[in-house]
């Protein structure tokens, strides 16, 4: 069985993002980028399934700029077998990614596609669900446990009321939640070795997918800065102040 793991190059989770002065987006110039943390969990889960003898090949896929190669190398260093870069400098929305993935799935016929449940840059939380819909395949989202049994996969999901387990017939789509596993690191020696693993370069046009955006960003702004507080001498003054501010 093959597993496809899509990985996204995003602004590093440690970086404090700066909004561009014209409010059109986040400033990515000279900003540290790394693999979306939920995608690292997806890669790790695929590797564990392979290590457990449930899968034979792991294919990492990324849609993004040439630099997304580094993200794919990270996946290869962790243990993916080969990688496909679908190169574009344009901003790609979840639907376009899902369509590209659909085309790759049609070529590769994986038993599972494991995706991060969302990317930490745009927090869309859509690609996995859209892919499942486009393919007409079952989906197990927000997985905190994944167990393959023959032709089906049991996915434990974190829901408000507790844990819900669903069984999906494979081929299926799984998206990962934070507590599914703790991903291994891509070590520097493994990054060097990963350079020998195959990495195919494609473009969206190769899959006949129109990636033109369907959404329009109106404005991006920083969260408001916390203002200086005031000090009141006693409870009466506090109540008076709250009334004055219209909150009591």
């Amino acid at each position, binding site marked *: 069985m093959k597993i496809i793991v899509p990985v996204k190059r995003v602004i590093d989770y*440690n970086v404090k993002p700066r909004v561009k002065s014209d409010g059109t987006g986040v400033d990515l110039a*000279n900003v540290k*980028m790394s693999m979306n943390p939920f995608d690292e969990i997806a890669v790790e889960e695929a590797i564990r399934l392979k290590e457990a003898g449930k899968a034979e090949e792991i294919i990492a896929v990324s849609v993004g700029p040439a630099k997304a190669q580094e993200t794919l190398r990270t996946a290869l260093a962790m243990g993916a077998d080969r990688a496909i870069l679908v190169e574009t400098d344009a901003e790609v929305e979840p639907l376009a990614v899902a369509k590209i993935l659909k085309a790759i799935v049609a070529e590769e016929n994986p038993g599972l596609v494991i995706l991060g449940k969302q990317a930490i840059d745009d927090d869309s939380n859509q690609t996995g669900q859209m892919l499942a819909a486009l393919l007409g395949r079952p989906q197990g989202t927000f997985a905190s446990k994944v167990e393959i049994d023959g032709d089906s996969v049991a996915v434990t999901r974190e829901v408000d009321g507790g844990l819900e387990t669903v069984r999906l017939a494979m081929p299926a789509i799984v998206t990962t939640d934070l507590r599914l596993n703790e991903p291994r*690191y891509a070590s*520097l*020696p493994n990054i*060097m070795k990963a350079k020998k693993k195959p990495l195919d370069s494609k473009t969206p046009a190769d899959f006949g997918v129109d990636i033109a955006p369907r959404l329009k960003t109106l404005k991006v702004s920083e969260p408001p*800065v*916390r203002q*200086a507080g005031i000090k009141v001498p006693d409870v009466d003054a506090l109540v008076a102040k709250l009334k004055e501010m219209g909150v009591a």
Partner: protein
Amino acid sequence: MNGSRYDILFEPVQIGPVTAKNRFYQVPHCNGMGHRAPSGMAAMRRVKAEGGWAVVCTEVCEIHPSADISPHNEARLWDDRDIPALARAADAIHEFDSLAGVELGHHGFRAQNRISREIPLGPSSHTVVSYDPVQSRAMDKEDIRNLRRWHAAAARRAKQAGFDLIYVYAAHGLTTPMQFLSRRYNQRTDEYGGSLENRARLLRELIEETKDAVGDTCAVPVRICVDELVGPAGLCSDGEGRDLIEMLADLPDLWDVTVGDWSNDSRPSRFGEEAVHEDYVSFVKQVTSKPVVSVGRFTSPDTMVSQVRRGVLDMVGAARPSIADPYLPNKIKEGRLDDIRECIGCNICAAADNTYTPIRCTQNPTMGEEWRRNWHPELIPARESQDRVLVVGAGPAGLECAVSLGKRGYEVALAEATTELGGRVLREPLLPGLSAWGRVRDYRLGQLHQLANVEIYMDSHMSADEILGAEFDRVVLATGSSWRRDGVARYHRTPLAGLDEKAIYTPDDIMAGRIPTGPTVVFDDDHYYMGGVIAEKLRDLGLDVTLVTPAPVVSGWTANTLEQPRIQKRLLDKGVTIVANQGLVGFSDQAAKLACAFTGRETTIEANSVVMVTSRTSHDSVYNALAAMGDQVRDAGIKSFSRIGDSLAPGTIAAAVFSGHRYAREFEKPESDEVPFLREVSELGPWSARN
């Protein structure tokens, strides 16, 4: 940052005839440079002014040859020839609209006068505080008149040098007016002894006469001790300390309030949190209308705001936080709180003064190097090449090296063998009292994560072959060191034979959670903090602990960091048995054999386990493997490979950070036999003056 909750810290404060532009006040602090390295001192103060401190003071300034505390290198205004050196500091501070302060001091019987050979002066005849076989003589009326005249003359010289704040210093038990104040030191029966009013007479006269001399244009602050921490036998903040401030309430232009001696004022982080003096200091503002400043290793802007808002302080005093981050005020002003290099309270800065060497800092490797190496805490030259640098090891040296190379713009890979960053500054902060040391790691990780040109690789043990295949131009090995098990350090220069190896532990074992059982001997031949900390940790775990050391005291070197007496007290209070002046000479069959450091006479004590806190071995195998590869390294495209930090030679965390920083600044420079820093060489005196 207008509208920020920190705005209050940037309000101006009137101090007598001068105005401080904000509330950040660098109190006087020693720096080991003083009159011996005046340009170094001036450049260090300058960078604080540049960083936004409204008031920047010198160290104590000896006003007369009878105030000679050499070999400590302090400022001097013995005569007019000392003016230019101090003027250089005042001018440098003025470049950034900061006020320059000078702390005039006469050290009374604390001055051994080792160079001047003057007889120390005091309120009464006392032995000096060191073990120098020297006693002071009780000052007579003429001596007191002389002292007042010297002080006024020094004040006029300080004004001439350009200072805006000219201190009267009566604190830390260190100066004559303070010694007159203290009942312990002042046994006089004339009008300068007896009642508090009499004991305060000299201080009052000095304040009045300093104001007369320079008060028209200069502020006259008083650095005062409000509590000697000896109970009613001395000044205390609910007794004579308070009475004194009430008595002199508005006489000085500012109160710079201290508690206890220097070791208490600069309380190491092992023994005191931020704002540790508040309970002693908070009364002062209630009894004076003059501005009040005090210290408390303030690094949190929220604590600073709280001190001001609650009416504890008018100005935020700092020595150590201004050393760790000369830009502390500007970073708060600009909202760059994550960029603050927070003081860790290790007092390696104080150790520099106590070892008569230019100041240094664990967090700020540029401290003390501003003039002689032209280093700046916030600025670092852009890269000179496209070289890609591999840093192996993410302890204090590797982290600092990667951050500084990254800030220069180099493409850097930082490879760490484990799955956590920090090395010894990850492990050691988990030991008792050392948590603040984690700030060495925290600051650098915060910086690293913002550097797009530095990649961090975890779980990346690098063999020599892997380094060769990694495609870098430069390789820096920062692989640390391990504590030795064989007893080798100062007492034993060769391995100790016949040890029961199964029951031998090292600090590395303890930090990794491998804990001994039963009665345990900690053999400390390291003499810095580790032996005491390990003993404390094991005692906290309930073990019966005996600390054996060939030295007369526990953790002897920490006398320099102002920690030693507190360490020894804590171990004794916790029930650690201390066996001093003894070396460990054998350990087998549950018996540790000790020998007297003087006579060699042997004794045995029962011990299930021994922890060796002796010396460390550098992790240099990868370096040696690369060295043995010869041309292969160059053929792989590696232009240079180097070692930094403990992997080169085990030392302090400060030395490791310095080593990493130095590499980042200097690795492109060709090897040279030149002295690597500027020196100030004393001007020769007139040869004709000899007989």
